[in-house]
């Protein structure tokens, strides 16, 4: 049945298309270089590593932009529009994140060069994940990235960071198990690990007795695996704790880049099932997405800590976007990238604002780092900061003309096009619910009197020029979205069409 996993191959170097592998090699090589640098000379300042990492990422980005659409490296790498788009988004997100290490106060984790090396390995892992349709390579990429990420979280070096890291690790291990089992079922059915060959094999065997049951079983296991990674209900419970334990910028990063990578793989896998007309897959994903956005929204309403609120809000946004995977049209797939591309800047900006106000000691609350009270009357203490944070909140709530609004209407429009009017209404109502908790922060900042604890020194504690630069960039992208959404959308749609994923 089928061909064995590894049959002897005889391929010339030119046919390897080593260029397809270059971006990841650059990231890995950069990471190793950082480690070597540290060996040769001790006590180098973090600013060097930060800038060096940015340069590596820039070179990486350059090599990604130079890629041609092709298969490469024993056919396990698949460079299509989707892969390039995802890699670019991942690299841009990473470049936004790294300068946040340059705070005015010294935070433990960034003084280790290992942090930056691990970060680059993680980026390489994500790049592997999104540019392959081979289940093994996806798995390897996923695990490389995840293992690095667990360590990055733990490096924040507080009791709840360790807790977060271990929690994330165990959950991640569980999800890896599900992924392996799901892939095994698909391999058993089709004798292949390449998604395009699996698709062909499943197509021909679908009518056999019992096969449909197996396909559904495999699909559900894979769905569980990705539900963990995407923090979909009921596998979302780790997310708020992990976000709380991680440092603010890392939490912001985690709400965007790893999820985007997981979304890309979900698109490849689940839209294959949907294209095969397998009953149930689309419905299950839709249910998951609706329940996720609703439950997370309701949970976010009752949070007392802004970071936890943002964690639940990120879960809800992920649920929102998961609906687009279920719709599986070109428009829906484009909307995923539009949404995450815009959401990335806004959400990272919001987490950066928390980072700016992060104090080394817990001064506001015995339990939380960022209780709402901390932001009370911020308009009186740091008016610009309050306005900036309010812009991010309004954008997340989907108030036009701020960036996330465009992503939101595009997804809603995609669901209207596919005939899911009820889904669009549910999304609308969920946006209305979510407006409440974003408004709550605005109310605290603008309409409440500052408490005695809130002073300029405390809220501006961690600010530095690089942080302000990133914030400025995020504000610019959030507010000026109207002027660049058109070309952005055009590029995205073109590349999605090229990759041939999704119905027209």
């Amino acid at each position, binding site marked *: 049945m089928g061909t064995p996993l590894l049959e002897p191959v005889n391929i010339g170097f030119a046919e390897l298309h080593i260029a397809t592998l270059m971006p990841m090699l650059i990231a890995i090589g950069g990471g190793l270089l950082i480690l070597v640098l540290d060996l040769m000379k001790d006590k180098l300042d973090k600013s060097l590593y930060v800038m060096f990492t940015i340069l590596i990422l820039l070179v990486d980005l350059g090599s990604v932009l130079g890629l041609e659409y092709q298969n490469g490296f024993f056919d396990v790498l698949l460079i299509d529009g989707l892969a390039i788009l995802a890699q670019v988004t991942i690299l841009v997100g990473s470049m936004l994140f790294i300068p946040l290490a340059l705070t005015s106060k010294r935070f433990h984790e960034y003084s280790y060069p290992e942090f930056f090396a691990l970060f680059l390995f993680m980026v390489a892992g994500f790049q592997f994940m999104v540019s392959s349709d081979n289940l093994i390579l996806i798995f390897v990429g996923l695990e490389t990235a995840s293992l690095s990420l667990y360590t990055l979280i733990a490096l924040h070096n507080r009791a709840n960071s360790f807790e977060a890291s271990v929690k994330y690790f165990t959950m991640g291990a569980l999800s890896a198990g599900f992924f392996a089992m799901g892939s095994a079922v698909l391999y058993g059915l089709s004798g292949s690990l390449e998604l395009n060959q699996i698709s062909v094999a499943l197509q021909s065997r679908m009518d056999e007795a019992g096969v449909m049951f197996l396909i559904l079983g495999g699909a559900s296991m894979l769905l569980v695996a990705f539900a963990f990674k995407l923090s979909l209900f009921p596998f979302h419970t780790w997310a708020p704790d992990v976000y709380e334990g991680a440092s603010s910028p890392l939490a912001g990063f985690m709400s965007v880049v790893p999820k985007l990578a997981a979304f890309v793989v979900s698109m490849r896998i689940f839209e294959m099932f949907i294209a095969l007309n397998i009953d149930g897959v689309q419905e299950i994903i839709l249910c998951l997405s609706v329940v996720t956005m609703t439950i997370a929204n309701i949970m976010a309403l009752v949070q007392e800590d802004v970071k936890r609120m943002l964690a639940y809000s990120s879960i809800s946004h992920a649920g929102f976007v998961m609906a687009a995977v279920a719709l599986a049209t070109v428009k829906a797939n484009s909307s995923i990238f539009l949404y995450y591309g815009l959401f990335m800047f806004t959400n990272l900006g919001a987490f950066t604002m928390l980072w700016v106000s992060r104090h080394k000691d817990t001064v506001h609350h015995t339990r939380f780092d960022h209780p709402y009270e901390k932001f009370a009357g911020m308009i009186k203490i740091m008016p610009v900061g309050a306005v900036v944070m309010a812009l991010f909140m309004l954008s997340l709530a989907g108030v*036009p003309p701020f960036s996330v609004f465009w992503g939101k209407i595009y997804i809603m*429009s995609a669901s*209207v096009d596919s005939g899911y*009017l009820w889904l669009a209404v549910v999304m609308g109502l969920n946006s209305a619910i979510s407006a409440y908790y974003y408004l709550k922060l605005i109310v605290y900042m*603008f*309409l409440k009197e500052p408490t005695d604890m809130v002073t300029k020194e405390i809220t501006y504690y961690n600010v530095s020029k690089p942080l302000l630069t990133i914030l400025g960039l995020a504000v610019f992208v959030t507010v000026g979205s109207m002027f660049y959404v*058109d070309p952005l*959308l055009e590029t995205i749609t073109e590349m999605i069409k090229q990759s041939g994923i999704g119905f027209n």
Partner: protein
Amino acid sequence: MTHILSILIFFPALAGVLGFVVDKRSAKAYGIAVASVEFVLSLWLWVGFDNVNAGMQFTEFSPIISQFGISYNLGVDGISLFIVIMATLITLLGIISLRDDTPNMKNMIISLLFLEMTMVGVFVALDAIIFYLFWELSLVPMLYIIGAWGGPTRVYAAVKFFLYTFAGSLIMLVGLLAMAYLYHLDNGVWTFNILDWYQLHLTTDQQFWLFLAFFAGFAIKVPMFPFHTWLPHAHGQAPTIGSVILAAVLLKMGTYGFVRFSLPILPDASVYFTPFMMVLSIIMVVFTAMVAFAQKDMKQVIAYSSVSHMGVIMLGVFAMNAEGLGGSVFLMLSHGIVSGALFMLVGVIYERTGTKIMSEFGGLAAVMPVYATVFGVMLMASVGLPLTIGFVGEFLVLLGFYKVSVIGTIIAGSTIIIGSVYMLALFKKSFFGPVTHKKNLSLKDLDGRELTALLPLVAIVVWLGIYPKPVLDPIDNSVKALLVQMEEHAELQTTKDAIIISKKEAE
């Protein structure tokens, strides 16, 4: 001036941004200066407006997201022209009426200028997404105005206001997206241009659902009867300037939405829903008038009476004839001016005494004769006394509605009586009789600042009450064009019959 509409929208916004630099103590003067320029610009719009042309004028177009059919598309016709002028006028007078010792004056001025941008934007937008954009954006400055300068439970009132309208308009957004999709199915291109949508033929079933989606957004904003509960809270807690703008301009967005979207795009559904809308409107008119009578707080009386009059506007909109629709557009203007003035007047007495409860007053006419006179004029206009601005619109609406339902007209007309009952009761309790509280004896009459804000409104009330023609004519033109378009566009013969104006009449 080909770009006057863009200038009208973005001038106050730009001024608002620059306002951050202006010194605190000069903020009010800056606000007055900017709002005056804006008002003059809007008058200029009127001067350049071609009264004979019933279509869109001063149109501007440039694509924003071309492949999704979103474009920056503006235009003004007889229906929106005067609402824009009213919005800029009320903003100007509202800023003038601000007390000099308002806390955080600078923030107030900046919020008002941003609010002005959104108000103008909503009424001149011809692209559904641009309309939606300004519609949602208008919530933000209002939230801040209510929440920062309001009464004791201001935060609750502000958040309720925001969430209620936000939820409704998101459902409206789904309707807008569905419209664009249906247009795409029919014509193969994406567009959010309202004028293109006017040409689209929809089945009655599609119209039914789209009407409900639009209804969710507009009815909450108006606010129609079961969805009105946010308004008394908002008015009760809002500062004077907040109530003035809310009642005068923001509520008109809802009725304007019905006129601009529901009627011409969904003619069959509009006719189908007419009985439903009428019942809701009549309940709204009668019920809130009764509630108004039961209030002890002067501001709540005005607030409920304002809701009651919005019901009359809704009746006119769904009368489906030139008199009713034209009358209701005119009534939007008069309601804006009269209720704006009444809220300012309540603000005046509240500033002096710190209370709005009617039983605390009495005999004010003797102490504050000028105030009592201005109040009297506005009150007469509010109940629709002939020769005031309130009469013209109300009369036209009832005349138009008479052709639709005689009994409905009698019930709705009876509110003029209930209206005069509660308004005169308010006037009697507060202004006549002996001065019951000694402290009221020393109240000062209107000062120069308040007179500057109020006298222009009094002048307009009398002027348009006696000679409404210059305003009514352009409104009438555009309204007739809209009805003709509706009739041509309707799918069903019953709809065509229900729309009473015929082509000949229009020509």
